[in-house]
């Protein structure tokens, strides 16, 4: 017993020395170099490129790129559109998501628990798919809903179309609203229900309580959710390209794509537009961070889980139930049905009688097409590689940040955080500028799958960091110290104690990064070619060339397989006892 205690003390003294100062610093420096190369270098290339002739600073300094990007009369429209679009998306997503969260968390609406399943919708329906589905439903002449309405009311054309600013806001805002739902249910759950109950006991009605207590208390959470959705909307590519461009409503991402895929690719102009988009995003993110820290000072989000308390809303609960149902129909039901409908037709028209000619022809054609096969193979391969690399890299970095006192770990944290501020499409532009520049001829990965690996690695690093560091913060220091006290070396302890304890978090983060990589479009669309095409880009390109049947059948198959993957994840995470994070 005593000798054992002595052994522990001695071993603890030994661990104090580990990692040795020199070696630890070297590791930090090495990692910092890797992170800087991944995250900071492309940004620097982007900034330099924007001021260079043809996007290359080596060819000389110029401001022409900004002139090209903003010189025309469109500049004002571009900013105006982008702000209206982002604001509208934020507001719509916030209203829908918060309303739903309130109904599910705070009222006695029947079957409300079942609607928690909504939280997986953003995972199973990629943005490109939902955007295309809503075009099928709402486009002026050929939209299914539009057609139905104009028939019922005897109009020659529906009074609204998806090809408008409200249409764009609708498609993106609806798509993002489940994320707000997730954020706000969490906020409701960590808000002490007696704050609301004491308002009721003070004589305030349910509505008065909602207005005077619930919403003000949640104000920081509300504002930050709206902001993050606005940023997401601004960064997204699908709606601006597929709806904004044909409707001649330019928004940043759509314009960047146009600059690169116009008559001739203008890297300089794309760079200038990207810079601006990034600055706007950065402002949003800074504002978001400040809001979050303010809400922590507000101390309403206690992190404590409260026993849920429902307000009895009487007959209104049938109204709220109908609201929930309508939302599910809009979010999942109609888009999915529209896709299934289109996928079964030999050619597309908003005409139900076409169903007589329904067949699985599109499916057989899609499955048999080599473009799809290659896209699927590339997507799965890239997703797996990216998920593995991100998880491994961020596990080590997160461990150093949360568990050691090594100097320079603050720098690692900052570097790993940078990619959060880079919209996908901007990252694509930056990587093009970097790997096409003369200095990088020695690393000829442009046009190969490797540039996509690097892209996803950069893009999803912050996700991996968040998952890993929150898991590691929860991991008690003593567990590891006991490992080294028992005589294990640093590496043995990390491998035998730390890693197994973190496995659930690692598995969840791997699967999550796998899925988001497979769905990535904004950067991939700029970085892929015929050989390196990925699934999301296949859908996008086939849509652009009008292969609607193939697009629809591919989308349906993608949704179904994502449902399967998510079901597996839920199995895995419940077995490992982790909560899934979206």
């Amino acid at each position, binding site marked *: 017993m005593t000798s054992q205690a002595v052994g522990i003390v001695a071993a603890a003294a030994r661990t104090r020395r580990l990692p040795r100062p020199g070696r630890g610093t070297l590791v930090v420096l090495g990692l910092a170099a890797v992170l800087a190369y991944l995250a900071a270098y492309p940004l620097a290339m982007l900034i330099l490129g924007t001021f260079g002739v043809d996007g290359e600073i080596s060819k000389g300094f110029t401001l022409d790129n900004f002139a090209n990007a903003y010189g025309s009369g469109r500049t004002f429209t571009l900013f105006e559109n982008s702000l209206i679009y982002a604001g509208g998306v934020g507001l719509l997503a916030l209203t829908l998501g918060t309303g739903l969260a309130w109904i599910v968390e705070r009222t006695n609406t029947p079957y409300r628990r079942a609607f928690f399943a909504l939280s997986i919708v953003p995972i199973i329906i990629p943005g490109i798919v939902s955007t295309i589905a809503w075009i099928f439903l709402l486009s002026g002449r050929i939209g299914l809903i539009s057609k139905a309405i104009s028939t019922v009311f005897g109009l020659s054309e529906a009074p609204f179309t998806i090809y408008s600013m409200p249409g764009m806001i609708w498609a993106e805002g609806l798509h993002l609203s489940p994320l707000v739902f997730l954020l706000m249910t969490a906020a409701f759950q960590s808000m*002490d229900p*007696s*704050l609301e*109950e*004491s*308002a*009721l*006991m*003070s*004589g*305030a*009605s*349910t509505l*008065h309580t909602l207005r*005077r*207590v619930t919403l*003000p*208390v949640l*104000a920081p959470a509300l504002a930050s959710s709206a902001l993050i959705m606005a940023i997401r909307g601004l960064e997204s590519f699908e709606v601006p390209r597929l709806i904004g461009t044909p409707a001649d409503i330019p928004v940043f991402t759509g314009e960047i794509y146009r600059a690169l895929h116009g008559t001739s690719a203008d890297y300089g102009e794309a760079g200038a537009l990207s810079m601006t988009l990034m600055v706007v995003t950065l402002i949003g993110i800074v504002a978001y961070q400040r809001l979050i820290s303010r809400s922590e*000072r*507000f*101390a*309403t989000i206690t992190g404590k889980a*409260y*026993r849920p*308390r429902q307000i*009895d809303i009487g007959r209104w609960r049938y109204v709220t139930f109908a609201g929930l149902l309508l939302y599910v129909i809009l979010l999942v039901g109609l888009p999915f049905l529209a896709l299934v409908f289109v996928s079964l037709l030999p050619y597309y028209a908003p005409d139900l009688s076409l169903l007589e000619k329904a067949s699985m022809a599109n499916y057989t054609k899609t499955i048999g097409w080599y473009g799809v096969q290659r896209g699927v193979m590339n997507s799965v391969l890239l997703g797996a590689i990216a998920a593995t690399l991100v998880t491994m890299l961020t596990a080590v970095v997160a461990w150093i940040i949360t568990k050691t006192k090594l100097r320079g770990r603050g720098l690692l944290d900052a570097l790993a955080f940078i990619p959060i501020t880079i919209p996908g499409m901007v990252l694509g532009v930056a990587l093009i500028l970097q790997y096409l520049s003369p200095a990088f001829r020695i690393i000829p990965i442009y046009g190969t799958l490797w540039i996509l690996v690097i892209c996803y690695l950069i893009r999803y690093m912050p996700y991996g960091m968040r998952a890993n560091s929150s898991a590691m913060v929860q991991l008690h220091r003593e567990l590891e110290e006991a490992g080294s006290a028992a005589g294990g070396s640093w590496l043995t302890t990390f491998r035998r104690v730390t890693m197994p304890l973190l496995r659930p978090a690692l598995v969840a983060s791997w699967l999550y990064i796998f899925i988001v990589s497979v769905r990535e479009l904004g950067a991939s669309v700029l970085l892929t070619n015929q050989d390196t095409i990925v699934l999301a880009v296949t859908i996008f390109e086939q849509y652009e060339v009008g292969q609607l049947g193939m697009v629809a059948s591919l989308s349906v198959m993608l949704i179904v397989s994502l449902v399967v993957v998510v079901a597996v994840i839920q199995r895995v995470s419940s077995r490992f006892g982790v909560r899934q994070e979206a």
Partner: protein
Amino acid sequence: MLVVDQLHKTFTTDRGGVRAVRGVSFTVEEGRFYTLLGPSGCGKTTTLRSIAGLERPESGTISIGDKVVSGNGSFVPPHQRDIGMVFQSYAIWPHMSVFQNAAFPLESAKPRPSKAEIKRAVEEALTLVGLEGLESRPAPQLSGGQQQRLALARALVRRPRLLLLDEPLSNLDAKLRERMRIELRELQRKLRITTVYVTHDQAEALFLSHSIAVMHDGAIVQEGGPREIYREPASGFAADFVGSGTFLAGEVTSGGITALGGMVRCTLPTDLKPGEKALLVLRPENVVVRGAPEHRPNEFTGKLEIAAFLGDHLDCIVSIGDVLVRARAHPSISLRRGQDVFVEFPVEHCVAMRDDGWRPRALQRTFEEDEA
């Protein structure tokens, strides 16, 4: 006046139904302080929340004054019940100032009083709880004790018919808790507001209340004034929960029970016949410990196992045979651990009850969990 009659409430959970309250009935006279006392999970909060209208009981009636607020097919929503309530977490709104917090009940009232009236009433309420001068302070900057006072002011500001308090002192540190206890008692006695108080702390209940209801497993097992509850517990559970003591179980003989290797004289309930099982609970302050025998009735010889000096008294544990008896002796008495002592149970303090099989969980009393 508050009348609760045959209240029942079952919660449906993933693991089936929880019968939180089963047939609770009681009456609180106008202006009285009534306490629901019991261990964690016995249904106190659920009862209180049903009175408030925050839970919907599945049966039973609740009336405030002469108005039925729940039961008989009617249900008055909480905001129309004219009740002030203080929550365990205080539930001070963090986005409002002290004044705004206290003014809220008046601003929600219909018809809404004038600005001047609101100001006057809020100032009066804040003065009542000793928060005058802090009107403009943002609520999150208040200390725990101040939040507690503000919650009380907010509950009182519109002079409700009924005041409900759910473990309001349990989040305060010991010193502050004692002070607030005194202030709360004085406040209630001064305002004469009908009050229902929920606690798991027997000392709080004894100190504050006109009447106490001891609850166990969703039902009231005994009701009475503080003295009665403490001195004449009606069951083993009540005796165990309201104070500490030694449990002596034995068979009824004439004039006492068989215990401690002999007979202990005590008063017996009339319905207990010789040969039946009875239980005698001895409060430590009613057990006399001496160094020399006085040859009085109910005197036993034992060995002093522990004598711990606690300032105002000496906490003794004496073994008589294999039974450990707890006693409270005067601190000046000079006794040494391990010596033989003489223990007397004065007959006037010995009242036995029917043995319901309840035995104290010794020193491992369960305390209220964090969430109540």
